[in-house]
């Protein structure tokens, strides 16, 4: 099936319902997971929005500035904005949201602000002051992520957790009409919408009346439904379907999420990877690029950088190019590291112990089917150098229950973390110390040098200087082979040619339906 597209200058129709097929169904509309961010973007607005070029532009905040010491931020809010429960958007309400996030209302917002945030106060109805304990010049950039979306204070205070989970009250373009668990969420237009971001493609309430946000876990089913005209747009185009959809005339959009790419972090405190040479040998043993290109069908981009993805400001190409396939080097390094013997199956051994490394991964949640194929390729390639990689697909529940979270349990950890700045490095590489634990440090790598580098970058006000510092941190990670990149995480969309102006917001690549309209 699938239409080749409408005639040029086709007539625009008002209203209508967008049938949208999304992959995963989160537990709540608002929360700390990207799947929730995609949904809350439709319903809630943020203070700032990220523009195409990576600069924050006004949204609920008309303007903002930081004090010279970088510790005090002042946001001026748009006037006349109302939450969909009728309560007005005030500085006080926004301040309440900040405290709400930090108090457990949003775990992701919390890790970003932790260590920097002091307090938020309303100076008057329209003016909000945020006090920081250390300078954080990219605060406005970070506030573009939907984890920092603003909800009605009244709703947060008076409604039940269930209500706020299922249908949070924001100022957004849509409101949650109903949620049929396991099937769909129906979002209806907020006819009184006034607070579109500065980078919106049109002004005024949404063009379409309704979004039927359906949950269709299977990629093939989503694609086929699009071809059969059962849906107008879908999220996460399987790589294998990309070309076909393109030829059939569908509009495809691909967004490489900034932040941490899909990468492998080595366990630096326990097991063979404590030895830097072994880490490097592993990196050299892989032909990551060919692997990703083949399985990703040229759609999934290869990513050599273990720190941040290529779409992240301050990305270091040098770090990305640090290792390429070189089996001789790999063998040499392993010999140096003392893994000189080889057993009957071709695996290296040292003192009778096999070079056995464990690679657990969140199957179906963190790593999708294509990612799993790539990991199998990694396993097979590393075998050539004599690594025995044990792949352990961990189901979501076990993974979330903290299985394989300790150095004893794993040697390599795979995963990503979306962000809008290289500030993600701070979350991933801050030291894990007894009095300030950092369980997000997957390499268990406690290095004050690296941490200081990142902290300096975080607080550096000059953009170029900051990027240089971030790049330095990435190169540090590459030099010590703490983590190597595999591929970039994508947010991709396929849209019917009869649906126009669907775009991907620039913070996380989620679909924006506010501007979308149908043509005949």
């Amino acid at each position, binding site marked *: 099936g699938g239409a080749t597209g409408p005639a040029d200058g086709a007539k625009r129709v008002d209203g209508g319902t967008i049938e949208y097929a999304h992959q995963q169904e989160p537990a709540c509309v608002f929360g700390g997971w990207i799947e929730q961010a995609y949904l809350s973007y439709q319903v809630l607005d943020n203070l700032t929005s990220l523009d195409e070029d990576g600069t924050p532009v006004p949204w609920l905040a008309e303007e903002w500035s930081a004090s010279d010491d970088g510790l005090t931020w002042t946001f001026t809010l748009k006037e006349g904005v109302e939450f969909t429960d009728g309560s007005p958007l005030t500085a006080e309400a926004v301040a309440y949201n900040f405290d709400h996030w930090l108090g457990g209302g949003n775990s992701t917002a919390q890790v970003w602000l932790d260590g920097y945030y002091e307090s938020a106060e309303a100076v008057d109805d329209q003016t909000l002051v945020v006090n920081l304990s250390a300078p954080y010049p990219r605060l406005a950039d970070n506030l573009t992520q939907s984890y920092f979306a603003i909800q009605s204070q009244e709703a947060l205070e008076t409604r039940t957790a269930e209500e706020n989970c299922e249908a949070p009250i924001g100022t957004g373009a849509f409101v949650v009409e109903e949620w049929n668990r396991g099937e769909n969420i129906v979002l209806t237009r907020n006819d009184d919408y006034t607070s579109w971001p500065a980078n919106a493609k049109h002004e005024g309430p949404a063009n379409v009346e309704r979004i039927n946000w359906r949950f269709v876990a299977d990629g093939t089913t989503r694609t086929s439904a699009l071809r059969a005209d059962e849906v107008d747009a879908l999220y996460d185009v399987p790589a294998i379907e990309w070309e076909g959809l393109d030829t059939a005339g569908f509009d495809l959009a691909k967004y490489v999420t900034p932040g941490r790419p899909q990468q492998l972090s080595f366990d630096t405190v326990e097991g063979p990877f404590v030895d830097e040479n072994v880490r490097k040998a592993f990196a050299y043993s892989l032909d990551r690029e060919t692997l990703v290109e*083949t399985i990703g069908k040229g759609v999934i981009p290869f990513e050599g950088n273990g720190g941040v993805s290529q779409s992240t400001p301050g990305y270091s190409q040098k770090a990305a190019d640090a290792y390429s396939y070189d089996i001789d080097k790999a063998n040499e390094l392993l010999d140096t590291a003392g893994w000189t013997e080889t057993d009957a199956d071709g695996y290296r051994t040292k003192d009778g112990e096999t070079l056995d490394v464990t690679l657990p991964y969140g199957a179906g949640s963190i790593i999708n*089917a294509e990612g799993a*194929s790539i990991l199998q*390729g990694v396993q097979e390639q590393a075998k050539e150098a004599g690594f025995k990689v044990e792949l352990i*697909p961990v189901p979501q529940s076990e993974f979330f229950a903290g299985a394989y979270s300790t150095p004893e349990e794993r040697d390599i950890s795979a995963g990503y973390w979306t962000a809008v700045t290289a500030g993600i490095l701070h979350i991933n590489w801050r030291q894990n110390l007894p009095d300030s634990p950092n369980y997000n440090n997957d390499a268990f790598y406690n290095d004050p040098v690296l941490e200081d580098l990142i902290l300096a970058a975080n607080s550096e006000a000059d953009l170029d200087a900051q990027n240089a510092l971030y790049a330095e941190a990435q190169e540090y990670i590459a030099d010590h082979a703490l983590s190597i990149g595999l591929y970039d995480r994508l947010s991709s969309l396929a849209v019917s040619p009869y649906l126009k102006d669907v775009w991907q917001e620039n913070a996380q690549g989620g679909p924006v339906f506010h501007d979308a309209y149908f043509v005949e």
Partner: protein
Amino acid sequence: MTLQQKVPVTPPAARSRKNVVAPWGLGAALAALLFFVAALVAPQVLATHDPYALDLANALQAPSLAHWFGTDESGRDLYSRVVWGTRDSLLIGIGATAVSLTIALILGAIAALAGKYVAGTVNRVIEVLFAFPTLLLALLLVTVIGPSAFSQVFAVGVGTSPGYARMIRGQILSAKNSGYVEAATALGHSRGRILRHHVIPNAIRPLVAVIALSVGQSIVWASSLAFLGLGVAPPSPEWGALLDAGRLYITQAPWLTVIPGLVIVTLAIAATTIGKHIQASLEKGEK
């Protein structure tokens, strides 16, 4: 001259014509089984390629002379993977059957032979477990012990056991109440001897057929778990895992899904057919 003559009066035609398996059906089933056993014992002989070797240049090839079942997204030869996967799949099926029948035997025997209260309680336990759909029970167990080949074996084994426990209980009870047990009692044989010589052997005999049936069914259940992502770890070529992995490519490379499914179905049907045949011939010996 009778009060009531008890000549067996069923017309000859009613001497039941059992559902016999057509001979060619049985032949095909045996041939399939032979192949699978060969693949279990000596996969290297049957396989044409290394089941794990990547061949990135030849990814997603349709079935051809070079690759009988085609290749997957990494260029691995599907036929060879199916052959090598036989071991995992079959062992899971056999293992699950062993677990299932062991549990079923213990529960069934207690429910049939123990004292009134113990038997009653165990019988209730069987009933409760039987109220769980097989997959649900298996799902619960896999979550508890984490997905692996072992947990598949265990979960499927436990999941399918209540049905067999019921069956075994019935079997033992009917042996226990049979004429030959009464005859042995009348001959003055001891309880233990009767149990050993008559009840247990006669109750266990039909299990031969059940084993075959159960191996086939267990593989299907295990692959269902694999399909839900709760199976053995890839890149193991276990059939359920193959099928699950192929699903992403179903429109472009349907063979990746259809062929492993076909293999599972073939084995299940072959096992069932053979099981039925054994059952039929056992019954023929008894009726």
